[in-house]
């Protein structure tokens, strides 16, 4: 059980997919102008990563190694289609806003990364936890980015106006702004990581 906790923690912090591994950047640029979109996207990715890791770990013994990536892609595609249909049915307006990016979850490197790096070598339960928390790490970063972008770009949080009388930053609504926000976040977290490492070495 201790091990699962460690997996969960490192996936959110030390090995955060976006901030430390620089994966999943494309969707982090595209959908982070509004917090609601980021939340839905993050939950979708978490769902897909967790269940596809779980499934791949379950069937890994049955797959010939040569075609394992092909099978992994099939599994991931299956869950992505579930998310896509779910959003189209129950949240049509958000599904429209996210546009092609839901379908593109399948190309999110985080999912394939977890499948190859972890799920293919570990039993189902740790794989599930690993995938789930990799997704949670992604979700949290997305929310942080969109928090900055939505406040500066629209003056709202989750669509609720903050009642501020201010000038919106047009740039924050556009994808390039995510480059600035992500890179500043990476700058800050890398500085932390370096400091923590130095402390660890001294101790």
């Amino acid at each position, binding site marked *: 059980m201790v091990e699962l906790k460690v997996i969960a923690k490192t996936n959110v912090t030390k090995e955060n997919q976006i901030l430390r591994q620089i994966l999943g950047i494309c969707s982090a640029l595209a959908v982070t102008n509004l917090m609601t979109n980021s939340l839905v996207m993050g939950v979708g990715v978490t769902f897909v990563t967790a269940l596809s890791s779980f499934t791949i770990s379950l069937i890994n013994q049955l797959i010939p190694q040569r075609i394992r990536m092909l099978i992994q892609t099939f599994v991931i595609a299956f869950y992505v289609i579930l998310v896509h249909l779910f959003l189209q049915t129950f949240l049509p307006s958000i599904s429209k806003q996210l546009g092609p990016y839901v379908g593109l979850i399948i190309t999110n490197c985080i999912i394939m990364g977890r499948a190859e790096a972890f799920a293919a070598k570990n039993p189902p339960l740790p794989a599930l936890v690993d995938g789930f928390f990799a997704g949670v790490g992604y979700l949290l970063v997305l929310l942080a980015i969109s928090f900055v972008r939505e406040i500066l770009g629209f003056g709202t949080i989750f669509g609720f106006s903050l009642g501020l009388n201010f*000038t919106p*930053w*047009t*740039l*924050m609504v*556009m994808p390039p702004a995510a480059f*600035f926000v992500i*890179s*500043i976040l990476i*700058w800050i977290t890398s*500085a932390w990581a370096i400091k923590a490492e130095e402390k660890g070495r001294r101790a």
Partner: protein
Amino acid sequence: MELKNHFMRQKMMTKVLISLIPLYIFSVWLYGLRVLTLLAVVTLVGVLAEFWVMRLIQGDKVKVTEAALVTCALYTLTLPPTVPYWIAIVGILVALILGKGAFGGFARNIFNPALVGRCFIYISFPVQMTAAWAKTYTSLPGGFLRYGVDALSEATPMILQETQGVLTPLKDLFLGTVGGSIGESSALLILIAAAYLLYTKTASKTIMLWVTLSGLAFSSAFYYLGYSTAPPIFSILSGGFLFATVFMATDPISAPRDTLSQALYGIIIGFSAIFIRTFSLFTEGIMFAVLIGNSFAPLIERTVREMRAKRAAGGAK
């Protein structure tokens, strides 16, 4: 901690600052003393930002370079006279922290920091940066005894030309009694500054020459082919073309160093500026043009160097 120990003097940069004095005096006459308070605010915030970010890199031996002062002074001249203080502050923070500090500080930045800052606020706050332009004072004592301008107008010579086809007389453009960004008005004063910079060998004459030639060539081409209604001389004198050519394109850090590369770099900038002015929604393109030129500079320099090395090797055989 002595302040003296934390400031790095750079002779070249002092000369640039001297060359800007006439432009500042002239712009106070046009737009009032607010220009100077704006400069003071921008410089204060800029120096603090540079000190903070360089401290992360250099620790206690941190030095604020004189180049940071040049960035602040140039950046202020590119702003519209009516720009709110807080927007100016956002821009200079982006300029020195993201445009310069993030790359590692002085001499490591690939883009001209002043233009990075201006570009950021130009795209973020289009209304404040482009919708309102100050009417200029054109008599004595002009703005020397006033804080700001009394009247706003919606047009600069470039906007008049693009929307109504009205060409401002070249004499006004040359002397600078026209609206626009703080420092870009007077072609005459910019040319005097250019002469001073060239005489003291502070700025590259190759770059200035080729940006201007390329600007002239492409604006003539677009004008005589019927794509543009702005005659070539008008294009060079209006907007920020001359200002950017003299002060921004020649930035020794973000421009290439050898003559051939500088010429190619100049051609790219002149072409991009006129191309953006003619075919895009933006009225002015020189800011983007210099940034585009900056991004090509390392590539041009490397290609030229490799070509030369190859030719030298071939000749030796």
